[in-house]
């Protein structure tokens, strides 16, 4: 068994260079709450760990263009403690705070949750709904990528060799907007989402939905952006008919698997149920 090297560079370029130079045998260490477990069970066997937490950009939350740039390694607990962020994007913050226990919250990050590429990652549907954009740093410079385009399958991402997600940008929230995220789990805490739904929407002065994004988790190989579900809401006041259409569109978008956490039938059914509830919360928030 080869020894595992550990590096904690202080800038992104150095981190990217290390990653690119390791020929696929390196892993980025943010919160580590997934990576360490995968290493324990030999799911991944890296020869180099690149800890990005000594890099300032990955550890800070900053307001930018009326939105928020959240460092990829900022732990979930810090998101909730940032009052402005929590007020602007309560759904994203709630979703991030649902990841694991209080203890896990002390480490787990948006960047890690995104790049771990689990279809059931709680924060990802919420970020998709929020229109979040990942800033990717690589050997060829930086690029901005919609979060829904990061994961390509369970455990797989579109990141090229040497590329690192450095931060997540949550855009300026229009007036009369709100977001929310709910997941279904059998217990009240500590479970992986059986289904997760994030919705962000905007209303006009009459309470008519003018824009919406619906993110869906744990029902397909990656978290999904469901345009048809958003279309069901846009132009409505989220009346019963719109909600029915939303639920139907969400259920239609599901292509889940039967596994130890849920059946196809249950997941498809619950996705619709959750979508109604999430839309209702987002609607209320938008109206405030």
């Amino acid at each position, binding site marked *: 068994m080869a020894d595992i090297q550990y590096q904690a560079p202080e800038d992104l370029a150095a981190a990217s260079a290390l990653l690119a130079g390791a020929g696929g045998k390196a892993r980025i260490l943010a919160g580590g709450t997934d990576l360490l477990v995968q290493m324990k069970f030999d799911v991944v066997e890296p020869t180099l760990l690149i800890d990005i937490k000594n890099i300032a950009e990955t550890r800070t939350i900053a307001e930018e263009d009326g939105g928020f740039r959240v460092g990829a390694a900022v732990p979930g607990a810090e998101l909730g403690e940032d009052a402005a962020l929590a007020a602007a994007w309560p759904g994203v913050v709630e979703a991030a705070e649902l990841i694991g226990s209080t203890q896990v919250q002390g480490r787990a990050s948006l960047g890690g949750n995104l790049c771990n590429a689990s279809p059931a990652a709680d924060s990802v549907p919420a970020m998709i709904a929020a229109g979040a954009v990942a800033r990717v740093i690589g050997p060829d410079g930086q690029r901005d990528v919609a979060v829904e385009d990061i994961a390509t399958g369970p455990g797989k991402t579109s990141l090229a060799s040497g590329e690192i997600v450095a931060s997540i940008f949550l855009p300026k929230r229009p007036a009369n907007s709100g977001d929310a995220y709910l997941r279904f789990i059998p*217990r009240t805490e500590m*479970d992986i989402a059986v289904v997760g739904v994030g919705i962000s929407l905007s209303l006009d002065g009459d309470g008519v939905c003018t824009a919406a994004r619906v993110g869906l988790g744990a029902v397909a190989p990656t978290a999904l952006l469901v345009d048809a579900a958003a279309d069901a809401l846009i132009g409505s006041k989220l009346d019963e008919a719109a909600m029915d259409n939303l639920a139907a569109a969400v259920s239609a978008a599901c292509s889940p698997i039967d596994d130890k956490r849920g059946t196809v039938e249950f997941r498809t059914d619950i996705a619709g149920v959750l979508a109604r509830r999430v839309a209702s919360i987002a609607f209320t928030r938008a109206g405030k």
Partner: protein
Amino acid sequence: MPDEVNTEFKWVGKRNPRPDGVDKVTGRAKYGADLYLPGMLVGKTLRSPHAHARIKSIDTSKAKALAGVKAVVTSADFPAIPKPPGPHGPMISDFRDNSMNMMARDKVLYDGHPVAAVAATSEKIARQALKLIEVDYEVLPHVIDPVEAMKPDAPILHDDQVTEGEDEKTAKPSNVYRIPRAQKGDVEKGFAEADLVIEREFTTKAVHQGYIEPHACVAQASDDGVELFCSTQGQYVDRGSCAKLLGLDISKIRVTSSEIGGGFGGKIPIYSEPVAIRLAQLARRPVKMVMSRDEVFRATGPTSGAHVRIKIGAKKDGTITAAEGEMTYQAGAFKGASIGAAMNCMFSPYDLENIHVWGYDVCVNRPKVAAYRAPGVPMAAFGVEGVINELADELGIDRVDLRLINAAKEGTQNVMGMKYGPIGFQEMLEKMKAHPHYNAPLGENQGRGLAAGYWLHAGGMSCASVNVSDDGTVTLIEGNPDIGGSRASMAAMVAEELGIDYNKVRPIISDTSSLGFTFLTAGSRVTFATGMACVLAARNAIKVACDRAAQMWGVSEEEVVWEDGHARPAGANVGDHEPMSLAEIAAKAPMTGGPIAGHAEINATGQGPATGAHLVDVEVDRESGHVKVLRYTVFQDVGRAISPDYVEGQLQGGAVQGIGWALNEEYIYDDKGRLENPGFLDYRVPVASDVPMIDVCMIEVPNPNHPYGVRGVGETPIVPPQAAVANAVENAVGLRFRDLPVSPPKIRKAIKDAGG
């Protein structure tokens, strides 16, 4: 919470702080994995990835050649134990099974079955060595479900096993090991007399004890003997098993029990202990073996998943005329499902004329089951109590009233022939009916469930020593690992007997060489049986103290009594001598004949019934099937609560384990027979936010067979919750649930199928 009105005793029945409390809140207490010795090696186990396979060969040469590897063992390094002659009867103690479970010989029988082990200088090298062991398997068809395993064409786990009672020479091999049976009266006649007969089938999944501390041990060995430090529910039983499996003299092995981080029955069997000893013998260095959590789930005892068929007949007035139960239990890879206990207990809260119960003990490709809190009973009681609740609804009789009509009372004889002495079941049911919880209003989608349960504590062998120091303080030595505060109970009883301050009694758990044999911390026996030994040891010490006082006063022994911590003159000599305290007598001990001490070696007997009943409210999210437990009240006849704090804790803990069993816990296997959820992430034990406060209502009907009236309390509370919770869900949604866990997908599907 009960008040502190007990004025009969000074220490018994009081909320005394536990003697091991400070060590346990400061991190000083030493659990199984907490011992580090110089030169200690790390032991690791290679486990089967297959549910069922023949081992064609094992090549350990590469592992042995790895630098840092000090020993490698396979089954070849342990004595082969011959098949014991049958029949075995109700108590199976088959060391050949235990040996083959510890380390597979010809076949692996479940995912996680040990096939080899290594000891190395570091965890990293040990893990690497495991990867270098080459095992050539011939994968065989496997069977996970006991009903499938009973079919004629099912894969056979043991070619040399025939169903007990059949001729070993002519019978075909079978996965069914035994079909135990118990009968009372005439059920056919009883069913004929019934106005209503309800017959239902129930299923439950295998569930794990889920103790938070994984199995852990440290072994040292030389030609002089073996030292084993381990987390166990019984150091003496462990010692015996290790001696048998290794071919050693019992007296050459000293087992010291660490503090134990939960057991619930699951730390009765031995797993890695003999392996660690063998590795230590070969390496000539101490070896520590600590299981990972996935090893705990994959390879240590869950309790049986079960198929249960219950048939009960009753008259219109609610009198039950006959009861029948058929149980099919998973034994796991080796025989020994707890059907006997299920038969003993399932109908035993009730006074019934006609009972017939039987069951099938079925081997399947799963880990060998271990005892889990009232082993075998919750699955059967789930069915029995479910049918009784349905009977009550059909007959239009209140669920508690139906139980009251049929409640066991003093003199009731159960199906096993045990006749009850004083029993608090009727009183408890009356208390439940009168409790505010019983008639509290329920909201929309909320339901209330209830169920009863029965267990009886075990007796068995226990030893205790009471040594009085020359300052009058006392060391109490007993042999049961303290799993939930038993030191406090032992110390309270001894302080009570001696009439000294509770804090002057220091209870110590002995190693196996320092005190005579003491049976397990199990079967709700410790406070009953070992408590009795402690009381007798204290009384024997008092005898010595009184004798010394008598000699010092120059009177006869009969003229001295022990009262309130003092030897006092009695009879004609009253007033002639000042009473002497224990401390005063002890101070003179060196010059009056030697130390003051008492000891007791007993086999406690005098089992008494311990009955309970639970009341629970839930709210069901009809759209998702999610269940929230809103309110929970446990009622139990506890005999006498020596340490009310810890008795309440047992009742609360048992209830919450039962809630987990009812709602979310289950072993899930894939189609290759591999366990899919060997971790706390997907094996979902209740977390703090899942449950409400668990209210406790203790009824104290003392057990006449114990000096302080103790009944075992630890196991009964896991018997009622499964049926009570399912009943509450039924009550909330108006549908019946007979398949545990009553998990959200099942509830949602049932509601949907019913048009909701």
